[in-house]
């Protein structure tokens, strides 16, 4: 089986993260860039399958600037067999739709039996790219899986909702996204770190993928940032004085805030 794992590089959640207030684009220069933790969990899902089925090929795929190499090398040191880095200046500031189109094409070109992704990145938090990719590829999509069981013929997973849980399945090839409950990522090993350098890491431009640069340029993307503003300062909370109606005031507050 060949499994593609989608890896995204994001700013470290423990550092200060900034949006550029004029363009609305994430300021990637401040702070450390790290492989998104959810992507490492997605990779762990693939690697566990590989532990049990040695001939499995796991490919880490990412779209992003130069620094993405670090995240891909980490994926290789954890046990991925090869990595693909889609790198092109025209992709700067790409929105989710563009990202999905490009990744779908890269996956199609590489070939796969399964695509595994994290459910939501810690920076953009759109949570839509895996679904869009499945749509582009015309494949089933199993989303937000808390646990997943992969076999040669089918993928079965469990997804939670507000009211209960669902068991969902699809036959391959398919796209799945996993939540943080799906797996705890393994540490890379010293051996893995040393062998990572010898594993193939190919860099592809939009041209290599057969995608016209003009189609994805920032100006003609399908979504546009209209306004960006800083989160307002936290204001003091509301104080309720109990004149006999505190219960009602509290209930109103909770309902208005959609907390019940």
């Amino acid at each position, binding site marked *: 089986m060949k499994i593609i794992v989608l890896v995204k590089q994001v700013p470290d959640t*423990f550092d200060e993260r900034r949006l550029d207030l004029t363009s609305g684009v994430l300021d990637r220069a401040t702070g450390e860039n790290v492989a998104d933790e959810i992507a490492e969990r997605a990779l762990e899902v693939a690697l566990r399958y590989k532990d049990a089925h040695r001939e499995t090929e796991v490919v880490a795929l990412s779209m992003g600037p130069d620094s993405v190499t670090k995240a891909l*090398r*980490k994926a290789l040191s954890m046990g991925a067999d090869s990595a693909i880095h889609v790198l092109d200046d025209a992709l700067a500031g790409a929105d989710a739709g563009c990202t999905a189109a490009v990744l779908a094409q890269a996956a199609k070109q590489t070939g796969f039996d399964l695509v595994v992704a994290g459910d939501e990145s810690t920076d953009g938090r759109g949570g839509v790219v895996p679904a869009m990719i499945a749509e582009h590829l015309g494949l089933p999509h199993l989303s937000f899986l808390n646990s997943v069981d992969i076999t040669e013929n089918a993928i079965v997973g469990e997804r939670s909702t507000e009211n209960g849980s669902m068991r969902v399945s699809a036959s391959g090839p398919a796209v799945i996204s996993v939540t943080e409950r799906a797996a705890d990522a393994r*540490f890379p090993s*010293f051996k893995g*770190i*040393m062998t*990572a*350098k010898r594993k193939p890491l190919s860099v592809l431009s939009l041209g290599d993928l057969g995608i016209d640069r003009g189609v994805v340029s920032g100006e003609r993307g399908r979504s546009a940032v209209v306004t960006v503003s800083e989160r307002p300062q936290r204001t003091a909370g509301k104080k309720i004085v109990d004149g006999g109606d505190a219960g009602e005031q509290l209930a109103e507050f909770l309902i208005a805030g959609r907390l019940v």
Partner: protein
Amino acid sequence: MATKTIEYWPLTDEQRAIVELCAQFAADEIRPRGREVDEADVVSPVDIFQKAAEVGITDFMLPEEFGGGGFTDVFTQCLVQEQLCWGDPGIGNFLCSNGFFADPLLALGTPEQKEKWLRPLTGTDPVFTALATTEPDSGSDSASIVTRATKVDGGYSISGQKAWISNAGLADQYVVFAKTDPTQRAKGVSAFLIKKGAAGLTFGEPMKKMGQRAIVCREVFLDNVFVPDEDRLGEEGAGFYGLMETFDISRVVLAAAATGAARAAYEYALDYARTRTQFGKPIIEHQAVAFRLADMATRIQSAWLMTLHAARQLDAGENVTGLAAMAKLQASETAMFCTWAAVQTLGGWGYSREFPVEQWMRDVKLEEIEEGTSDIMRLVISRNL
């Protein structure tokens, strides 16, 4: 993280990845267990050792030809040790204890001995090891040991008593230093390789320690333990010199350990000082507190630079006995100061066992004593001026 680490020397991509791995392992697997291990008093956390073995931490420093990770350079060992001991001083040292056993083997061993005694330390199911030099009446003056190795047919019969032996009882393999010639001092010391279970080899109860409780120390009793000729490590009389050689390495690695512990204390105190308020402001804005933190930061920079400098010199094959001693002296005294200062900064909470800094203060005291006390370090330095 309270501080951003800027690289002192250019690291390779692999070294950077190794540092990141060890930092993550220390934060996820070591730091959360420190207090529990301290309070358990005499129980080594073998499960953490096992996890570390799976990642390659326990054998990275052993040569590849015997199954190790091949990072035999002291510089990488320092990078690793600093991160692990940042997690917890005792646990960090426990995880790399096989590296200390390997040093005399690499210095004195034949190829057959290295293969036989180093390979079991590698892989995902390694054995534990111990080095036995110190005796009840013989600490700094290690050439005065009285454990006797008498020549017998086919080997030696060893009798005597060792004290303060890390991992004794847990360890499967031991390097024991004994006198083959009691009329001599250093020249009469030889080294022997012994396995647990050898007839006549027994252990005392765990010794109750101030800190670094992840490593359990016991007395070792040798009652006519037979060691065949092939398990003598190095020539007769070469034991002491082998030991001295390995001290240069182990002292620099312990300097790294002490620096990691110092950094842990400093970062903890810094975070605390930024949030705790008294007299209307965060205490870091009171100069007494700020100056103490400034001193901590300064001394840590200095200790780390010295440690890495000594490591580099060692790796280049230079004679660095004096420099290695300086690094250990500097780093251990820095760790003592920084942990004291962290307790002081946290005040009452520093005294509380709910916070780690008092434990770290007890832990790092050992670094002014083990592998050569600070007094001995000054002796070595002065003799190498």
